[in-house]
């Protein structure tokens, strides 16, 4: 087991190198001189040259890449061109927001998607099944931006049940100093229920918006995995023995149907971290995604670079954890 993990960790190195190379090339091969873009419509050639020098853009591309890698090894992702704040500092402040949102979205996706998939499988071809599958098709294809605005208009502008965006109300913000950066956790640690209510109220709409695609995919995967398991001999045997139907479904079938679901959860969770760009932007959620979006608009290359590397690394690590967890879930799986 330990050896397997070590081997997987070593395998990460080429993957991560590939990520850095891709990110680096993307930003350097798009047309247009970054220095000109940065300075905008009023730059003199002299200013452009100075900035190119300052950004190291005059070096040959491979040398620029090596310098980039060297800095990366010391967690030096550079500074934002616009604000001058070190990228690593900004990531430290922002990742808890993204992580909290992704966890909330995943909980919703699991809490709704898996039961929906189970019901659909058990009542195969029934009205419930068709409705669930149609619903999940809509969920997969719904543009996040549109759904987010729809929810804001319905629940915040018209009904006034929930705040439209942000992570914290204006009033709650005056007295609140974060401890961990995970606001839900902070509110609990402080034992402040008014704050907790405010934080959760702000979390609901973006979490729902972010969860839809994963929820739909989970429902579909759960359904097909359950269908496969339910058709196996041991289920028939269990039923023949007179085991209660709910026990058959939840104890015998669901547990064995979970393996593909876990795989998807891992993949989806990684996607959530990165896919939060649109959701965070619509909901003014101060996380990594909103930061990358701002970086793209301003052509703040170090920000985009740092943000993408963070998200990609998180994605890879989460999938490693998922792979390892197989062994824990299913004792039949052995790693050599």
């Amino acid at each position: 087991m330990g050896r397997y993990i070590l081997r997987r960790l070593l395998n990460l190195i080429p993957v991560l190198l590939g990520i850095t190379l891709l990110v680096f090339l993307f930003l350097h091969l798009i047309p247009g001189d970054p220095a000109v873009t940065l300075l905008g419509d009023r730059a003199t050639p002299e200013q452009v040259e100075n900035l190119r020098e300052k950004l190291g853009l005059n070096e040959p591309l491979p040398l620029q890449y090596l310098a980039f890698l060297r800095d990366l090894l010391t967690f030096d992702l550079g500074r934002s061109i616009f604000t001058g704040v070190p990228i690593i500092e900004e990531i430290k402040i922002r990742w808890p927001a993204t992580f909290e949102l992704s966890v909330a979205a995943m909980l919703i996706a699991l809490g709704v998607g898996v039961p929906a998939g189970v019901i659909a499988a058990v009542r195969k071809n029934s009205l419930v099944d068709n409705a669930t599958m149609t619903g999940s098709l809509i969920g997969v294809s719904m543009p996040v931006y549109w759904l987010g605005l729809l929810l804001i208009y319905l629940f915040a502008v018209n009904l006034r049940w929930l705040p439209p965006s942000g992570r914290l109300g204006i009033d709650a913000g005056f007295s609140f100093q974060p401890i961990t950066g995970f606001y839900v956790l902070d509110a609990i640690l402080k034992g402040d229920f008014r704050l907790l209510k405010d934080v959760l109220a702000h979390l609901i709409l973006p979490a729902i918006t972010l969860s839809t695609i994963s929820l739909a995919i989970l429902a579909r995967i759960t359904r097909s995995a359950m269908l496969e398991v339910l058709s196996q001999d041991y289920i028939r045997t269990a039923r023949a023995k007179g085991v209660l139907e709910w026990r058959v479904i939840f104890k015998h079938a669901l547990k064995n149907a979970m393996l593909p679901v876990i795989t998807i959860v891992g993949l989806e969770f990684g996607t959530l971290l990165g896919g939060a760009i649109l959701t965070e932007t619509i909901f003014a959620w101060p996380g990594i995604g909103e930061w990358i979006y701002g970086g793209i608009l301003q052509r703040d290359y170090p920000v985009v670079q740092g943000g993408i590397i963070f998200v990609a690394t998180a994605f890879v690590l989460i999938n490693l954890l998922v792979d390892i967890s197989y062994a824990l879930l299913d004792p039949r799986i052995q790693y050599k």
Partner: protein
Amino acid sequence: MQFWRRFRFVILALLACTLTIVLTNCDSSEPQTTTEGAATEESAAPATTLVYGSGGQPVNLAPGDITDGNSIAVQKQIYNRLLGTEPGTTEIVPELAEEWSASEDGLTWTFNLREGITFHDGSDFNAEAVVFNVNRWWDPEFEFGYRAEGKLYEIWSDLFGGYKGDEASILQAVTAVDDITVEFQMSQPFAAFPAAIASGYFGIASPTAIQEAGADYGSPSSLAVGTGPYVFQEWRSGDRVTLTAYPDYWEADLPKSEQLVISFVDDPAARLAQLRAGTLDFTVDLTPDQLPEIESDPNLEAKLRPSLNVGYLALNPTYEPLSKPEVRQAIAEAINKPEIVQAFWGDLGETDPHFTPPSMESAQDKSLDDYTYDPDAAQQAIAEAGYPDGFDLDLWYMPVSRPYFPNPKPIAEAFAAELSAIGINVNLQTKDWAAYLEDRNKAPGFQSFMLGWTGDYGDPDNFLYAHFGPGATQDLGNWKNEQVFQLLNEARASTDESERNDLYSQVDAILYEEAVRIPIVHSQPLLAQRTSISGWTPSPLGSESFATVEKS
């Protein structure tokens, strides 16, 4: 192994918790925000809190080191400048300086400062403080400029020709004559100096605070200290800036609100939704297509910021057919400006024959009537100029949206349609924004192109010299009109307002005839507020103090 199987979940959960705590502890060791004594636990919000929706977070709160609107909007609340502008106009009025004047030769500007003003940190505002701030922007050797740490103050060089020691620098020396008098020595007369120094870039910050904070001054984890109506409390990265009223503010009865929160909401649709939901009180940078939605909500009021920009169509005289003024004029005649502006900007755009925006009307030739739309006459003029069968023309449109051209491509298509009606065969072209800006300046340049300008400060010099002065016409194949050069230089040298206006009016008339950059539109940015807000007068300069804004 048995043990592992039985307790694996417990062990994993414990590991996860430990990991979380370790990771988050690295976070919280970094102060995310600085709030000395500002946030005591459980303190409720003050009664009057204004919430302003900003289109993004500031880059920095250090004056002179930024050019973006989001930073300036916040800085206008924290800092005062030497001079201000009359609300809603570009007219210069006293602010930290009560009086200002130029010497006879126009080479010395003297500012007399207001007495008895203190910065938010309790230190005194005086002539030394002004000199300290100017040195920071201007002097590359200044100890507290922190240029080695990456501070650039580019806007200073953009507006004043260079830094201390540069040959082109307009400023030669800045001195504190006594406690309340500051003198600026110039290398050449620069009549727009008061307007330039009044721009939002140049707020006066506390020297004590800058020396204490060092290069970090103005960043989210640091502080920002001025003499303005609001005191900096906290900047929560990606979320908000919180300010509170300055009790010792020098303007009587201001600010009107006890607390001002600047909330960052990048997406315009989300900003409008917040405004409608009541979590924002007023906001800026909305898109023209949001106007109907604002008007349909009885709790909201749409506001227009007076224009300080121009969107123009440039005709490059190095391209043979365009070398003749008659042809350029014919093109101006062939484009139905009022109809295009109505179609693409609606109530948010104005069109007139002047390159300078309407807020500078005293520097415009009011006798000018814009070219009347007359395709037949235009076609005839082109034929008479030697092109009876018309000619080919590359027309470049911008790949990005700007306030002066929110959707360049359809606008370019409208131009193309009108020009093809008089026999000009238009090829629409575009390229990546950076390449667009770069290549238009490379000889021979684009044959014709769309571009625009938003003013840095409220003086015609910033529009006319920057587009028609020496060195400013690279993108027109270094087109020059000696008379325009001469008039622009005279206007720079004169400190007599009416004389300057007269000179600029003459330039206006010549540019109208020359038609090398045909002004298409002056657009007014769309803003909105809740009806419960009063006292907000948007400035053409892009942002304004919110000291007079209050909520009922």
